[in-house]
């Protein structure tokens, strides 16, 4: 009986937390500029062509991310392909994690 209650409690807790977790978004693109506070990328789309079969094509849209609370992997440099998990608060995009895709490529070549 105790075991059942513990299982149900755990599942309920997970369900309760679940609603708070679905807030993040992901963007991928080429790093345009980066400093201690702000990262700017040119976003890529999801269309894979023979020329850009790994990362998609540049869209020309530049997005800026606040890096104050971000966990950054291999330090990005302008020109690197980055994938960013972020939260939107108001008009600002707050980066949560920054992955340097071009220097840490996990896809099969």
């Amino acid at each position, binding site marked *: 009986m105790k075991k059942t209650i513990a299982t149900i409690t755990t599942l309920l807790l*997970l369900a309760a937390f679940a609603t708070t977790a679905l807030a993040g978004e992901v963007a991928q693109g080429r790093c345009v500029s980066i400093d201690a506070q702000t990262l700017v990328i040119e976003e890529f789309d999801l269309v894979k062509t023979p020329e850009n079969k790994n990362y998609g094509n540049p869209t020309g849209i530049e997005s800026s991310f606040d890096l104050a609370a971000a966990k950054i992997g*291999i330090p990005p440099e302008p020109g690197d392909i980055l994938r960013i998990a972020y939260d939107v608060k108001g008009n600002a995009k707050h980066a949560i994690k920054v*992955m340097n895709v071009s220097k840490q490529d996990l896809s099969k070549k």
Partner: protein
Amino acid sequence: MKKTMLTLATLLGLALLPGLALAAGGGASELVVVADTRVLSGWMLYFADLYNTNIVLFALWATVLTAMYGALLGFLMDFVMSRTGLDLTSRKIVEH
């Protein structure tokens, strides 16, 4: 007590030794992985998003699901074994 201190000092010394080696470089940068949720939907989106935004809850889910999977396999094996005619519910040894 002295022996313990000596052991600890020795271990600390050994731990610091690699740093003195000529080949020792700076610390490697942390590897950060972001799951690409742009192409996902449903449960896959939920878990990938969780991996990106709340790694503690993701770990909790992994633990719970692993336990549930273990229990499922256990019950399945119990069922299969009972179908073979073996009675595993009794510890009675008939030879004695």
